[in-house]
């Protein structure tokens, strides 16, 4: 069977509640109406009761003092009572029913008849008259007390009924609200899970939506949107790759164009001014040409490293060994530049799974950059540590050099971006970044002009079981 939509459930629950309220209202109205009828009758009954009491008083006067006028007085009261009953018959009938009304009327007629007999001088009827009067009073008392009891019953009944319906309405409302919130929250949780999986790109893990309610529709829509987004992203990535290639080509043309121009100009002047130059100058020119070709060669080599990265040879490695080796290679430069260097290598780090040669290249590149940015007396600090939060090994290189200005900072990983003029290719950090990414690692930089720069490399731990032996720490 098709699952009921949340929307339909809400409507059904509300309709049920409205129905309950209408029924309760109707019952309450009915009870009130009944009570009103009874009260109206009670008013009439009170009038009748006092008139009956007066009749009996007159009856007493008649029998005790022989007042003839008392009899006609009673008769007129009886006819007034009968008229009153006739006049309010619908109310009376509704209140006490046909049988009781008829009995009341016949009792009154009977009283009237016996009184008539007494008037014509029949003294034997005294007991009969008294009995008839008594009957009327008794019957009237009976009716009024039973009516009062009934009014109380009705009021009590409607009180119970109202309370019961209040409880029922409350229960339904609360029940429906709970049910709805459980359903809606459940649906939201499903949507949230689906959205989370989509954000991680794991479409396959989203359970197929069988339900056709709003939640099911929302999840399907989300899924469709995410697939579409992924398609678009792929297209955009392609476009971006093409744009990147364009930038790369433009960069290459410019980078190679300059040394090429230098060679060309050197050669032109060499030919043009050959006779005016001495041998020393000739050699100088040719050497400069040689330097410029080397510059081109360097660019081409870096470019090739970038374009055709050699298949990395991943090995389980202790990062501290790589750091030490890289440090030894630049130690000479550090000494010449008169810099302080400090190694802070944490012992017993988990081993990393890396291409040692590539990571060493990255470290040397970073160290060389730091050395170039530093002046005599500045300090270099190389730290290794394990970050249990990210489960990664971190290598941090901090220098107190001239720092990188905020305008330049966003561009330092761009290809062909260099601050070293002709002596740099602008590919070092670009290639380094690629290498770290290829190791599923991260490379971060923070820097402040005039204060220093700090590069952090994060590398994932190889195997939690394969921890490397504690290594010896060596500083400079």
């Amino acid at each position: 069977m098709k699952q009921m939509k949340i929307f339909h459930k809400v409507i059904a629950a509300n309709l049920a509640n409205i129905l309950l309220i209408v029924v309760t209202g109707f019952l309450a109205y009915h009870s009130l109406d009944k009570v009103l009828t009874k009260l109206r009758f009670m008013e009439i009954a009170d009038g009748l009761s006092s008139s009956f009491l007066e009749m009996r008083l007159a009856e007493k006067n008649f029998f005790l003092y022989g007042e003839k006028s008392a009899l006609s007085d009673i008769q007129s009261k009886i006819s007034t009572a009968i008229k009153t009953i006739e006049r309010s018959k619908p109310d009376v009938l509704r209140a006490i029913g046909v049988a009781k009304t008829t009995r009341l009327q016949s009792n009154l007629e009977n009283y009237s008849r016996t009184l008539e007999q007494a008037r014509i001088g029949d003294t034997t009827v005294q007991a009969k008259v008294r009995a008839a009067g008594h009957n009327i009073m008794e019957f009237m008392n009976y009716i009024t007390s039973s009516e009062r009891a009934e009014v109380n019953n009705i009021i009590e009944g409607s009180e119970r009924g109202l309370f019961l319906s209040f409880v029922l309405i409350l229960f339904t409302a609360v029940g429906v609200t709970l049910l709805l919130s459980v359903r809606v929250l459940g649906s939201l949780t499903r949507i949230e899970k689906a959205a989370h999986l989509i954000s991680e790109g794991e479409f396959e893990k989203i359970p197929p939506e069988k339900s056709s309610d709003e939640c099911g529709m929302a999840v399907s829509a989300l899924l469709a949107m995410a697939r579409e987004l992924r398609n678009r992203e792929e297209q955009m990535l392609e476009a971006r790759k093409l744009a990147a290639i364009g930038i790369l080509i433009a960069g290459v043309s410019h980078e190679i164009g300059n040394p090429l121009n230098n060679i060309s100009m050197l050669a032109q002047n060499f030919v043009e001014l050959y006779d005016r130059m001495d041998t020393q100058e000739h050699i100088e020119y040719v050497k400069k040409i040689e330097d410029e070709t080397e510059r081109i060669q360097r660019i081409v080599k870096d470019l090739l490293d970038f374009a055709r990265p050699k298949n990395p040879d991943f090995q389980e490695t202790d990062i501290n060994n790589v750091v030490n080796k890289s440090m030894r290679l630049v130690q000479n430069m550090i000494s010449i530049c008169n810099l302080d260097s400090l190694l802070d290598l944490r012992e017993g780090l988990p081993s990393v799974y890396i291409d040692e040669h590539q990571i060493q290249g990255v470290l040397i590149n970073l160290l060389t950059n730091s050395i170039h940015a530093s002046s005599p007396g500045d300090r270099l600090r190389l730290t290794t540590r394990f970050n249990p939060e990210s489960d990664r090994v971190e290598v941090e290189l901090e220098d107190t050099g001239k720092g990188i200005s905020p305008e330049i900072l966003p561009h330092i990983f761009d290809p062909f971006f260099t601050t070293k003029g002709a002596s740099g290719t602008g590919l070092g950090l670009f290639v380094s970044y690629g290498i770290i990414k290829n190791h599923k690692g991260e490379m971060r930089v923070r820097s402040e002009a005039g204060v220093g720069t700090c590069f952090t490399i994060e590398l994932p731990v190889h195997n939690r079981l394969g921890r490397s032996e504690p290594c010896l720490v060596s500083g400079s």
Partner: protein
Amino acid sequence: MPGFRVIVIDDEKIVGQMIKVAMEPEGYQVETFLNAEPAFSRLREEKFDVVITDLKMKGIDGMDVLRTIKTAYPDVKVIMITAFASLDSAVEAMKSKVDGFFAKPVKIKELKECIQKLLSTDESGA
């Protein structure tokens, strides 16, 4: 063309050197700079006839040099050279009234001819 004064701005040191070496024997006075700032201060001090500038430079780039000179010294001829000549940059330079536009590698002979032509028309026009 004796006595004409030329400024070369290019962050490639060899460019300035080679232009200087090629032109000084013909009587030009050539001063070379690796960026625009010191060249501007020289221009404020003395009168120059031609400025040869690279397009892509750190700091003030060639297009800024062209505009600044054409605004402050409309008589000074500006020649632009670039290692990455795009149609866009050429059009932009033309709009800013560049007097010559050369793609690297530059033929020094052609550069000299261009300068001679610019200076002679200037003289005949004056």
